[in-house]
């Protein structure tokens, strides 16, 4: 394979890297007041990336760089959604960051580096590429959490995130090295073949799997490897929380699926029973702990844990139904969490964070439209039709019931009943209580438009979920080579 053929699948990433370097240098020349230029440049970069990703899309699965890198439908869909998500993150956080003096070139460059990391994770077909992407993402995120360096709580969150994240990476690497020992390769396809043909050292394989699953669980933030999630979500500036809590979930999904399904399909019986425990524990602890929170960001952190647990149910079910529903769930979750954190930032002012439950009191009287949008988002998170969150839950439940784990579906719905309580509580605060503050809510027309689209999108996709569901199922079917 010649060099050019190798470069085509990665052209979006190359473009992104070039642009990041360009922005990094160009930003030095700009004064603080003209950061808007950088911002526009970043948005244009995202647009350019999506054009390239669409343009270089090829039917089927293309491997590059000696099978280290893969370009398939799933990677293209997830990348497109990542660009969209990242673009939304930037729109939501612009005003919030400007008011706090954090709207700097570094922020945007780090965000793009994180995106590059995610792209690499999404397209990786080799343990080393996977790890490379993961570290690029993680290091960017550590730095972003710590960007507000005079804030003790943010620094603490960054420290925690870094230490635990490094530990998780260590576990993952350790597991990978055991896999290498057992199968003699780091390439996912080769590992898969080796396992299917029988491996001499079964215990090495089993140990490796445990470490890998633990590492993945850390990155996904599922119980019992969830400790960092609430602290980081709470401590980081909301714009960073938004970033951490939304787009990287797509990459984490791809990462998990690539390792467990593409690489370790032969061990499905083992890892799916581990995931069952992780999923149930996440749904239980996440839902119960979320009830006790008064800080909204912390509450959403626990809610993330729950949602990731629910998503794992899809992976446990397996097959196109299962992986497709898990992907659909992740995409829907990203949309909902973008909206929810976006709303927190929208309601924040200079020197004031609207991140406690009380800040949402009486929102319906201050702004009926925003309250309505937030209600849609909360209903969607609770999985109540006619919002898209219902179909996310529905498709996962359908996949579980199909595999015969009906009891697991019952456990899942009972926990989501508990979850419904704290989402309803927010609706209650907005609609039934009197406002504590009567400060006018000031927000730019771009964020206002975006949050409206975000909320109505949740409703619209709830009325017409078919297309997105099919996209997810088809991309899983074409990419994971299950049959």
């Amino acid at each position, binding site marked *: 394979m010649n060099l050019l053929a190798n470069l085509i699948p990665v052209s979006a990433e190359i473009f992104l890297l070039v642009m990041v370097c360009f922005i990094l240098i160009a930003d030095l020349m700009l004064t603080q007041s003209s950061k808007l230029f950088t911002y526009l440049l970043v948005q244009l970069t995202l647009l350019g990336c999506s054009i390239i990703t669409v343009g270089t899309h090829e039917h089927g699965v293309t491997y590059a760089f000696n099978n280290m890198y893969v370009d398939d439908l799933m990677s293209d869909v997830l990348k497109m959604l990542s660009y969209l998500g990242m673009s939304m993150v930037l729109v939501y956080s612009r005003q919030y960051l400007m008011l706090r003096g954090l709207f700097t070139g570094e922020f945007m460059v780090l965000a793009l580096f994180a995106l590059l990391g995610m792209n690499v994770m999404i397209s990786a077909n080799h343990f080393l590429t996977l790890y490379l992407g993961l570290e690029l993402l993680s290091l960017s995120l550590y730095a972003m959490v710590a960007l507000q360096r005079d804030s003790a709580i943010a620094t603490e969150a960054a420290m925690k995130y870094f230490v635990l994240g490094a530990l998780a990476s260590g576990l993952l690497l350790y597991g990978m090295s055991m896999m290498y020992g057992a199968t003699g390769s780091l390439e996912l396809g080769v590992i898969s073949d080796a396992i299917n043909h029988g491996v001499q050292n079964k215990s090495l394989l089993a140990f490796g799997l445990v470490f890998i699953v633990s590492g993945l669980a850390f990155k996904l933030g599922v119980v019992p490897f969830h400790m960092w999630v609430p602290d980081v979500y709470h401590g980081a500036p909301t714009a960073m929380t938004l970033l951490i809590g939304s787009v990287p979930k797509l990459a984490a999904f791809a990462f998990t699926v690539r390792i467990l399904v593409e690489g370790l399909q032969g061990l499905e019986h083992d890892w799916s029973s581990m995931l069952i425990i992780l999923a149930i524990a996440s749904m239980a602890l996440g839902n119960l702990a979320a009830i006790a929170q008064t800080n909204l960001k912390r509450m959403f952190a626990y809610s993330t844990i729950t949602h990731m647990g629910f998503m794992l149910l899809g992976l446990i079910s397996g097959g196109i139904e299962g992986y497709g529903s898990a992907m659909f769930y992740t995409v829907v979750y990203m949309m909902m969490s973008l909206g929810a954190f976006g709303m927190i930032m929208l309601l924040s002012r200079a020197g004031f964070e609207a991140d406690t439950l009380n800040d949402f009191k009486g929102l319906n009287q201050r702004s*009926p439209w925003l309250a309505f949008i937030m209600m849609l988002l909360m209903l969607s998170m609770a999985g109540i039709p006619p919002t898209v969150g219902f179909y996310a839950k*529905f498709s996962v439940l359908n996949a579980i019931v199909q595999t015969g784990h009906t009891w697991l*579906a019952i456990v899942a719905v009972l926990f989501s*009943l508990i979850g419904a309580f704290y989402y*309803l509580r927010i609706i209650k605060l907005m*609609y039934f209580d009197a406002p504590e503050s009567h400060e006018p809510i000031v927000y730019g027309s771009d964020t206002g438009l975006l949050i409206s689209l975000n909320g109505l999108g949740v409703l619209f996709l709830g009325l017409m979920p*078919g297309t997105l*569901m099919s996209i997810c199922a088809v991309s899983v079917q074409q990419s994971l080579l299950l049959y």
Partner: protein
Amino acid sequence: MIFGLPVISITIWLPIIFGILVLATGDDKNAPLARLLALVGSVLGFLVTLPLYIGFDTTTSSMQFVEHHDWITRFNINYYLGVDGISMLFILLNSFFTVIVVLAGWRVIEKRVSQYMAAFLLMSGMINGVFGALDSILFYVFWEAMLVPMFIIIGVWGGPNRIYATMKFFLYTLLGSLLMLVALIYLYNLTGGSFAILDFHQVAIPMTAQILIFIAFFFAFAVKVPMFPVHTWLPDAHVEAPTGGSVILAALMLKVGAYGFLRFSMPITPDASHKLAGVMIALSLIAIVYIGLVALMQTDMKKLVAYSSISHMGFVTMGLFIFNAYGMEGALLQMISHGFVAGALFLCIGVLYDRMHSRNIADYGGVANKMPVFAAFFMLFAMANSGLPGTSAFVGEFMVIMGAIKVNFWYAFAAGTTLIFGAAYTLWLYKRVIFGKVANQHVEELTDLNAREVLIMSLLAVLVLGMGVYPLPLSEILHASVNDLLVHVAHSKLPL
């Protein structure tokens, strides 16, 4: 379909569109516009349901006015609507009550008028959707979505303890719904990929699975009815809800539960239904007798009527699970009649509450002296609630008791006691509130019904009496579907 128009879709979406329009009128500066728009929307919403009645073919038990469009092709979920004799009348009933509720809230609701009116219109469309849906997921979507407006209605415009009540209402009903969802998905896999309710009716199911499915459905529907052990949310919700909310709760929400038994539990799991019929009848009788006694002890007017509703709904569930034509038709007529009567009683209490801001029976006395017209209407509805012949309630209760006698004398005997208890608690309530000397200064200041209230009461009075004297136009619609359902339920669905 009439003139090629999708009638059921119109009955669903017209109120919803008007609801959105009303919502768009914004804050209370535009309240008159919101009220007017809501009235127009609800009246139109009622008018568009009339073709269902006029064009209804009473000779067939198959679905009519069927609409079928692809919706979510991936899961073979369709936008599939249709009505039979069982569901059609409820669409009419619902649309009728939406008009009543809009009128009842005309002056009383002063804050956030547009949101109040819009919530009722949206809910009206969704309830029509529940009765019209023939795809179980479409049914489920409407079924859960209608909780949201009710949640808001009770929570925003309700009484002092409204937040506790509305949370309890929502979570109770959600618990049942989620278990039903799992059952629906299970059935989807059993039928080999169809969510159509009519396909569920045909599929063979082993006994254990039938019983589990029945239990899942039981949680969903029994909570809504509400049946005896899971009824506790209803008094709370009723007491705290604004008048309009109580009316819709009593007249429609409870019926949705019983409708679920008819449409899902009995035809999908006939063997389990027969096997567990004893339990269902026992729970129904407990509701009839025990809750009737509980109603006797209430000091709060709304609570009293709420408990009376539970007791009357016990009749409905008993009528369904004795599996004969009298029982089932009686149960359906009782559902419709109870809609009118309980709705009317809540409106009566609303009339008093608007003037006195008290639901306490002890605060009243001698109201007849100050509100003679009101007292007359209240008398009629109180009599109907105790099942007096000539009122609508008599027809249904009589038929259910007839049906029960055929099965077991003691069922009929126990159910018959309600005629005594029902009369006791309703008439005692009436006596304490309406008769006697003027109790206090506040009663002295009461003013009689205004024209709008007289209009509402007269409409209901005519219906209550009309249905009591001449129920044939309703019962002939039920006949074919009920008989078909009974034949269907009589056949075992166990796999051979």
